[in-house]
């Protein structure tokens, strides 16, 4: 099936998310849609899938102009979509999810479900495309990679000829990503087309037949997969990208944060952080690397007082564990939480109010009873200028900002108090390149001012660029603490648990409970991905991990180039607003 988009334009308010976009997807090709967060990729695909209607432009399927007003229309036209946030009912079985909407039923009006037939269909389609799933497994029990497979099967069962994958690798481990690429090549061989939406340059080069680059809602170019990473990056961002963080080597000072025997349980009562000890010196950046879901979140929550824990974490001799979040803040801990939408900001509050949120009850923002609105407004205006937050004024609600500017607000709040310790979780997740450079610079400034900085990131390049030392977490334990010039291969091995304590960690690892044995992902040692978030840079060490298809991994070639993938995951809610400041 040949799919053409002609002159698609869509504006949200005054922002053109898509302007006059042309795109042709030939049968049997893997067509990559490359662009930064907020470039308009998801908007375009939602139009194609009938979830949004374009202001102008047309969709042409096999030479015939079609109009999609609902996903149903798109499905009937042979378009399937795997959403970034899966459209699966967690409490349903795989088979129930797959038949939903076009159930085979007996008994006419009664609509009696034919569950046997449903299972057969699932087994048949999954066998035909080499996508093994257990039709009776509950979706919520499956690893993210397998859930994604279910989504792909869902599209295939509806006879999709064009399959849209929206940022499919954002939630995958390196091994699962490789698996997915194999599946994509298999679909191509079966004559289907794949539209692969991403912002990760290495993946594009690994799998694409053709690349269309989108920037600020416009197609800015077509590229060949052989194009260099650097060239692709500047095409995507619109300028030459300097992605190396400049920092002078520095002698670290005395121990500032001392963590001893810290153990933390996750929501399910499992041991997520298992007897972790480390020291963080003044004037040092310690990066915590690891695949998402290996205890990093819980570690940070314990240190910042958000989660009860056993053990000790002393900041200049004062105990953080057991203290309330407020006390921890008062001790001078600045926290950049990993999810700004959820934990970092009150979206309906203004920038100024968000900036005063953690100290609203004390000078200069107010006292126990009253807020000093003038002080709050003034502080807002000052930070707006200092942190280059692009907004009309400090009274603009945080929700109206792009992801990068929202993150700057969160960073500004943590830094304006001149923290005695900075804890930054995923400091640049889902932000544009400009904001990322800015935030990195501010973090290094903290270090240079002699402050201890703890960085948690699933993006390996970010960790290596910022850190003085790197601690790798795997299944709740710190596998090793290594210098920042350690190669990515070595780090990748550690992230997969390949350290000295590997065997011991395997025994004790409660995290692995979540991985069913039936899981068809090749590397059984892979910890489960529980969050819906990214770990993009981790894709690099794929070929160093003993995965069956590792030899095929084409990502390694890109490694020599000093270019970092632009940004991880984009939140769909940001999509429309993000173009505003670009």
């Amino acid at each position: 099936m040949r799919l053409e988009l002609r002159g698609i334009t869509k504006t949200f308010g005054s922002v053109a998310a898509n302007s006059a976009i042309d795109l042709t997807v030939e049968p049997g090709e893997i067509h990559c849609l490359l662009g930064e967060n907020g470039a308009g990729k998801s908007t375009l695909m939602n139009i194609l899938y009938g979830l949004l209607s374009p202001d102008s432009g047309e969709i042409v399927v096999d030479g015939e102009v079609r109009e999609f007003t609902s996903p149903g229309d798109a499905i009937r036209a042979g378009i399937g979509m795997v959403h970034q946030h899966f459209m699966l009912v967690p409490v349903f079985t795989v088979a129930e999810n797959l038949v939903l909407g076009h159930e085979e039923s007996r008994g006419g009006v009664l609509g009696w479900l034919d569950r046997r037939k449903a299972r057969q269909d699932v087994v048949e389609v999954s066998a035909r495309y080499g996508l093994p799933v257990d039709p009776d497994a509950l979706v919520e029990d499956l690893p993210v990679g397998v859930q994604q497979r279910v989504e792909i099967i869902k599209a295939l069962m509806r006879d999709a000829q064009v399959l849209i994958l929206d940022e499919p690798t954002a939630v995958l481990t390196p091994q699962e990503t490789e698996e997915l690429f194999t599946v994509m090549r298999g679909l191509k061989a079966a004559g289907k087309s794949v539209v692969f939406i991403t912002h990760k340059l290495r993946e594009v080069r690994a799998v694409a037949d053709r690349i269309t680059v989108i920037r600020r809602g416009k197609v800015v170019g077509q590229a060949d997969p052989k194009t260099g990473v650097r060239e692709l990056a500047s095409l995507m961002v619109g300028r030459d990208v300097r992605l190396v963080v400049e920092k002078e080597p520095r002698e670290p000072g005395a121990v500032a944060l001392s963590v001893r025997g810290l153990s933390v349980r996750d929501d399910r009562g499992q041991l997520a952080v298992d007897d972790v000890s480390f020291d963080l010196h003044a004037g040092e950046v310690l990066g915590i690397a690891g695949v998402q879901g290996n205890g990093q979140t819980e570690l940070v929550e314990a240190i910042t007082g958000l989660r009860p824990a056993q053990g000790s974490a002393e900041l200049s001799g004062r105990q953080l564990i057991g203290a309330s979040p407020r006390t921890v803040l008062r001790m001078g801990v600045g926290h950049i939480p990993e999810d700004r939408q959820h934990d970092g900001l009150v979206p309906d509050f203004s920038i100024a109010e968000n900036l005063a949120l953690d100290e609203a009850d004390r000078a200069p923002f107010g006292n126990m009873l009253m807020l000093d609105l003038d002080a709050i407004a003034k502080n807002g205006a000052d930070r707006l200028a200092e942190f280059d937050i692009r907004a009309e004024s400090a009274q603009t609600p945080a929700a109206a900002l792009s992801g990068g500017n929202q993150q700057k607000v969160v960073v500004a709040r943590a830094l304006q108090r001149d923290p005695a310790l900075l804890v930054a979780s995923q400091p640049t997740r889902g932000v544009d390149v400009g904001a990322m450079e800015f935030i990195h610079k501010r973090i290094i400034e903290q270090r240079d001012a002699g402050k201890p900085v703890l960085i948690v990131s699933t993006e390996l390049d970010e960790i290596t660029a910022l850190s003085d030392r790197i601690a790798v977490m795997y299944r709740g334990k710190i596998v090793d603490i290594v210098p920042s010039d350690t190669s990515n291969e070595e780090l990748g091995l550690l992230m997969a648990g390949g350290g000295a304590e590997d065997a011991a960690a395997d025994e004790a690892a409660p995290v692995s409970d979540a991985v069913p044995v039936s899981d068809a992902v090749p590397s059984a040692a892979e910890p489960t991905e529980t969050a819906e978030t990214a770990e993009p840079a981790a894709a690099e060490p794929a070929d160093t991990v003993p995965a069956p298809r590792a030899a095929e991994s084409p990502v390694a070639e890109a490694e020599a180039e000093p270019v970092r993938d632009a940004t991880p995951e984009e939140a769909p809610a940001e999509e429309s607003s993000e173009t505003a400041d670009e």
Partner: protein
Amino acid sequence: MAVATIATPAVLAAPETDVRRRSAGLTQIVLGVVALFAFGLGSRTAHGASTTFGLTLISKQGTKVPDWVFPARPVIVALALVCVLIGAARLAVQLPRGWRLAGTSVVLFCFTFAFMAWSAADPKGGERLIIPSLLNSMVVAAVPLVLGALGGVVGERSGVVNVAIEGQLLFGGFMTALVGSTTHNLFIGVIAGTLAGALMGLLLAVLAIRYLIEQVVLGVVLNLLALGVTGFLYKSLMQTNQSSYNSVSQFDSFRIPGLASIWVVGPVLFDQPLIIYVTVFLVVLVHLGLFRTRWGLRTRAVGEHPAAADTVGVKVLRLRYRNVMLGGAFAGLGGAWLVGNVGNFTEAMTNGKGFIALAAVIFGRWSPFGALAAAGLFGFTAALADQTSSLQLPIPSDLLSTLPYVATLFAVAGLIGRVRAPAADGKPYIKG
């Protein structure tokens, strides 16, 4: 993610925490001690008093069964000791889940039985608790709860919270009385009551789905609306002219031959108005519908993840409209039962039954059979309060009549712990 983690105590998933184990064990011991001193060793059971349980339902035909008489004090003391022992065991050892449940059930049964034995204890043998009457009264009380809860289940499974069950019961009952009286046909009245409930459901659906009004607040407002409107019409229309506007015949019993002759329970379960059988049938039907049919699969999908259902072509809003109306119809039928059971409508006659039905939805974990069981439990406590009120207990009867509400509170707060509602329950679906 992270905030959600704070809201959920990390201990929840662990086997059983010490706090929970201790509180459960202590509660059981306290129940035992109360049973021992208040019931077993109190003045009511002194002087060799014996307990008399009547086993024949006087109002209905059937074989006469002799009374069951036993010495009150030894039996109650034994039951109380069982409670204490089970509680002590719970305190002392970590028990597996199955044992914990069994223990809790036995304690509740012993305590209840001790209460019943105490209430019917009398040295002269004059006081008696008629068990089939108790059961009959339980069935009668449970029917509107089951139907109301079923209405709640159907709506909430598709993602619309139905707090307006009370209002739907009330309006259903009112219309049954009005139409049944004017047409002199109770059956037509029941149909009208059912439709009236569906109409209330439609109102809820339009305001919740179309106008996105917060559903709990909306439900409360609709209840007040139903209370006001029926109250006004009752006063202005029915009270002045009872015979033409508020007088329906009562339901006839429909005796199932054979089954109705079963010892003690036969007359209670199988010699009842048709609606009772219909209610049980509806429970089975809704259960099969929810878990075995296309409608059920879509309903549950829409209640859990409406966007997922939408992307595969399920009409989310239409399904919700239908389900909420269907739920209203169930509740309306429940209201019809209330009227047909006594023969007329009285102001605010639902008296909180809709809210107990709502509790039954949650206590029954959004499943039809769960709702049936929960409604049965609440119906039993109501019946117990009702039947023991004539026994001249030292407990004031007004206090006794709060028993169903107390039981509801304990059931919802204490016994079930956390239950998982449909994920999209109460959340309006806005496309795009």
